[in-house]
């Protein structure tokens, strides 16, 4: 017997907000994954739209490489507005 694959579930809680990962489940195909996601994750109006994605299709960054992946952003203070020294009397900027 083959096991049902794992799916990741993303839910938009209301229009105007993005889909957010809310969990995972097993299902034989995408249609069943959608139905199960509705039954499990939206029993109390928690969503208006559901995405399901096979977990095997997700490529994730490696947390062990977080240093080199995210550190370079740290020393680029010039990407932030407070880096620029402007006179106090300057308004609306």
């Amino acid at each position, binding site marked *: *017997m*083959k*096991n*049902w694959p*794992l799916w990741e579930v993303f839910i938009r809680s209301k229009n105007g907000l993005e889909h957010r990962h809310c*969990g*995972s*489940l*097993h299902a*034989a*195909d995408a249609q*069943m994954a959608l139905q199960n996601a509705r*039954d*499990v994750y939206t*029993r*109390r109006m928690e969503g208006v739209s559901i995405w399901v994605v096979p977990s095997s299709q997700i490529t*994730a960054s*490696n*947390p*062990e490489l977080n240093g080199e992946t995210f550190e370079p952003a740290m020393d680029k203070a010039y990407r932030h507005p407070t880096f620029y020294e402007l006179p106090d009397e300057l308004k609306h900027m």
Partner: protein
Amino acid sequence: MSEKELKSLEDLFQARIDRDEKIEPKEWMPEKYRQTHIRQISQHAHSEIVGMLPEANWITRAPSLRRKVALLAKIQDEGGHGLYLYSAAETLGISREEMYEQLHSGKAKYSSIFNYPAVTWADMGAVGWLVDGAAIMNQVALMGTSYGPYARAMVRICKEESFHQRQGYEILLTLCNGTPEQKAMAQDALNRWWWPSLMMFGPKDAESPNTEQSVKWKLKRKTNDELRQQFVDQTVPQANILGLTIPDPNLKWNEERKHYDFGDLDWNEFWQVVKGHGPCNKQRLEARKSAWEKGAWVRDAAVAYAEKQEDRELKKAI
């Protein structure tokens, strides 16, 4: 990795937890952390699933449509709770099939409370009020646990639990305001569920070997005895509103401690049920196994159907 390197990794790891950082899947973690979490989260999941059985017994016998839809919704929630927790455990590298295997073979435990029978309708009230009530206390404490997927599952579960307890309490309230026979039925349910509910918090602190490590990993935010005391303190006034008597002659308000004193639990019974000799251990496991085995053809058929559909799509594309 040398022993010294491992030690320093472990210290860094613990420091993150102490700073209230969450640990997420695929990050480095001590092997013991992984194993302990797989064990606790999967046993928690099993408890949700096996917990559906005593209540399922009453769906077809609920006394009104209102009670029936509420009970059905509650049991469906418990199935969902099981799923959130299995998913959280899967992020640690164990498969769903392995976890089922552990449950069905008797290797994995689940909460002993579900090895007691639900023999009258009033038991549906007592289970919601006391059993879900005790579970909520444990679960609220776990919302701040260190493993991200477990903590998130707890937040979701706690949001859903309060209706469970309220619907149970309402069942008892109705019975207690009914005929003398109905009130007696409520009292009888409390008599049978009170002590097993107190046992849900586990052995006494002095006999709970994993407490210290679990506290460090925030798997335990309060000790077994603290939670048990808290449960007694909050439940006694609720019993008074129902006009029911807690079956403990030693129960007494202690003005000095500002807590209720209560009698000692029957620890012999506790260990007997844990070891598999409770009133329903066999029946519960049999029901789980039979549901899994009898459902095999459905799972196979769904896979066959999915493959056929995919095949069709492929052919269309050619």
